[in-house]
C-alpha cells in the first residue's frame, strides 16, 4: 500500500509497509494486523496507541520476528535498506539487542530471577561486543546510575529483591546498554502506578535524547503517549486509523474512533463508546468502526484507504482512514 502525494520529511529509520499478520487457531483465522503502515523517523518518539487486542503488540513483535512460527506475515519492514521480515534467524539475532532493542511488558517475567541485575545488563555487551566481564559490569553499573539506580546496591541485587519499578528500569538498562538505534517499549507502564509509570516513561525519553535513538512506544495509556511522544498512531481492530502529531491529534482528532476514544478519558467526561469491538476472526468488510460510528453512511461499507489531510497550522500532515476526508 503506497502513500499518496507528499514525499516524507526525512528518510525514515524504520518503515513498516503493508504489514499483515494472521494466526490460524482452533477458533478460526485471527487477523491480528491488517495492512499496517508506519514510519519511524530518526530521533523521534512514535507512540502506537489502542485498546487491548487491537494488534499493537503483534506489530511490535513482528518487527523483530518475535511472533510464533505458525503466524503468517505479509508485508515489509525496511531498516537500513534491508527487509527485516526476510532475514534469517541468525541475521535477526545480530539486529536484536544491538540495533533494535525491545523492552517487554512484565519485568518480573522477562528477567531471570536468579541472576544478578548487573550481570543481566552486562550480558549483551559480552555477547555482542565481546567485551571482558569486568568492563561490561562497570558499564552496567554506569547505565544503572544514569537511570537513578546507582545507590543502594541495586546492581548486585537479584530481581526478586527489587520492586516492580526497579525491575522495569533494569530491563530498560539491559535494552539500552548497546546503544541501539531503535528502542521498542511494549506497554512499559502496565501494572505500575501512575507516578512510577510517568517516571519510567520520562527516563525512556531522556535516554533516547542522550543516545539520539528513536523510540517506538506501544501503550494504551493515551495521556502518557501524548506527553512523551512526537507522533501518534491510533490502531483499531488491527488497522491504523489515524497518524499525526501527538498534541494535534489530541486537540483535533479527525477519525471518529479517535474522537470517541478521547471522549472516554476522565478529563473529557467518561463518555463510553457504544457497542463492542468487532471479532478478529470474522472481521466485517468495510470500515471496522462502521457499526459504532456516529457519522456513518452507506459508503462506509467499503474499506477506506488512508488519506492525507493537510493541516496548515500543524507541523506535519495527518493521515486518516475515513471516508469523511
Amino acid at each position, binding site marked *: 500500500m503506497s502513500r499518496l502525494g507528499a514525499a516524507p520529511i526525512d528518510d525514515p529509520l524504520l518503515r513498516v509497509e503493508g504489514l499483515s499478520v494472521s494466526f490460524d487457531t482452533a477458533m478460526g483465522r485471527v487477523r491480528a494486523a491488517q495492512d499496517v503502515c508506519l514510519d519511524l523517523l530518526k530521533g523521534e518518539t512514535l507512540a502506537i496507541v489502542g*485498546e*487491548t*487486542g487491537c494488534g499493537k503488540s503483534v506489530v511490535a513483535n513482528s518487527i523483530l520476528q518475535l511472533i510464533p512460527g505458525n503466524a503468517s506475515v505479509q508485508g515489509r519492514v525496511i531498516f537500513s535498506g534491508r527487509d527485516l521480515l526476510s532475514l534469517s534467524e541468525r541475521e535477526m539475532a545480530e539486529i536484536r539487542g544491538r540495533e533494535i532493542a525491545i523492552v517487554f511488558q512484565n519485568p518480573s517475567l522477562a528477567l531471570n530471577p536468579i541472576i544478578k541485575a548487573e550481570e543481566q545488563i552486562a550480558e549483551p555487551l559480552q555477547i555482542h561486543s565481546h567485551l571482558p566481564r569486568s568492563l561490561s559490569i562497570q558499564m552496567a553499573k554506569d547505565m544503572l546510575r544514569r537511570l537513578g539506580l546507582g545507590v543502594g546496591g541495586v546492581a548486585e541485587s537479584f530481581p526478586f529483591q527489587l520492586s516492580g519499578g526497579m525491575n522495569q528500569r533494569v530491563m530498560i538498562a539491559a535494552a539500552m546498554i548497546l546503544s541501539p538505534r531503535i528502542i521498542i517499549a511494549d506497554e512499559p507502564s502496565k501494572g505500575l*502506578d*501512575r507516578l512510577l509509570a510517568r517516571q519510567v516513561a520520562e527516563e525512556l525519553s531522556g535516554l533516547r535524547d542522550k543516545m539520539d535513538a528513536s523510540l517506538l512506544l506501544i501503550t*494504551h495509556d*493515551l495521556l502518557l503517549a501524548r506527553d512523551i511522544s512526537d507522533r501518534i498512531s491510533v490502531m483499531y481492530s488491527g488497522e491504523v486509523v489515524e497518524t499525526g502529531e501527538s498534541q494535534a491529534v489530541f486537540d483535533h*482528532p479527525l477519525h471518529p474512533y479517535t*474522537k*470517541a*476514544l*478521547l*471522549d*472516554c*478519558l*476522565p*478529563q*473529557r*467526561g*467518561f*463518555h*463510553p*463508546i457504544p457497542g463492542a*469491538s468487532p471479532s478478529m476472526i470474522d472481521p466485517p468488510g468495510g470500515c471496522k468502526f462502521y457499526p459504532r460510528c456516529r457519522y456513518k453512511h452507506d459508503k462506509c461499507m467499503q474499506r477506506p484507504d488512508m488519506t492525507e489531510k493537510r493541516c496548515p497550522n500543524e507541523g506535519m500532515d495527518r493521515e486518516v482512514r475515513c471516508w469523511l476526508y
Partner: protein
Amino acid sequence: MLAILKAENIGMTYESGLIIKKRHSIFQGISLEIEEGHTLGLIGPSGAGKTTLGMILAGLERPSSGCVLYRGEDIWKLKGINYLAYRRGVQMVFQDPEGSLNPRKSIERSIHEVLRYINIPQREWKDKARQALEMVGLSEELLCRYPGQISGGQSQRAALSRVLLLNPKVIILDEPTSALDISVQAQILVLLKDLQKNLGLAYLLISHQPEVIDFMAHNKAVLESGGIRHESILPQGGGARPDPL
C-alpha cells in the same frame, strides 16, 4: 439521609512472628458512613489498606477493633435471618475481573449457581440468567462462553450481574476499572451510575484515580497514614461532565 452501612472506630492490626509477636497496625480509629443510594469514594496511596477496609465492611475480614453496623446492628452479632439479610445486602466486586469467575465454569453455570443459592426454581433459570446479563448490557450469547474467552470488561460485567441477582443495597467496589482500558472503564462507570439511579444502590467506591471518584462519588474519604479524612465534593453530588467533542 439514612446511613445504611457504618464503620465505627475500626482498627486493623496484623501480628507476625511465632513466639515474640510483632504488631503492625494498618489503620486505627476509622469511622465512615455510607448513605442509602449514595456513593462514598475512598481514595488513598497504595498500601494504605483500602482493600482491607472494604473487606472489613463487607464482612469478609474481622477488624481488630471497632465495629461495623448494618442498619444499626453490629454485623458480627447478627444471626439467622438478620445475618442473611446483611450477607445479601452488602456485596463486593473485586479488582481483577477474570479472578471473580471460576475459569472452569461457563458464565451460564456461574450464574445458575447463584440462582440455586437464592432458591429460584430451576425452570426459571434460563430467563433469569438472560435478564441478569441484560441488566449489565451483555448479550445472552456470552452464556456458553468461559471466562478466558471473553474480554476483561465483559468478565467484570458478568461478575457484577451475579452480585445484582442478590438484590444488594450496598456494593463495595474495589478498583473496579483499574485493570481495564479507558473505553471499557467509561462503559462500566456509566453502567454503575445507571444502576445506582434505577436500583437505589449505595456504593463504596475504592479507587486510586481522583477523576473516577469525582465522577461517581457524592462524598469522599481519604485513607492515609493509618487514619481517615473526610472531604466533600460538589454539593449536588456526582460530578459535572464536560460535553463530548
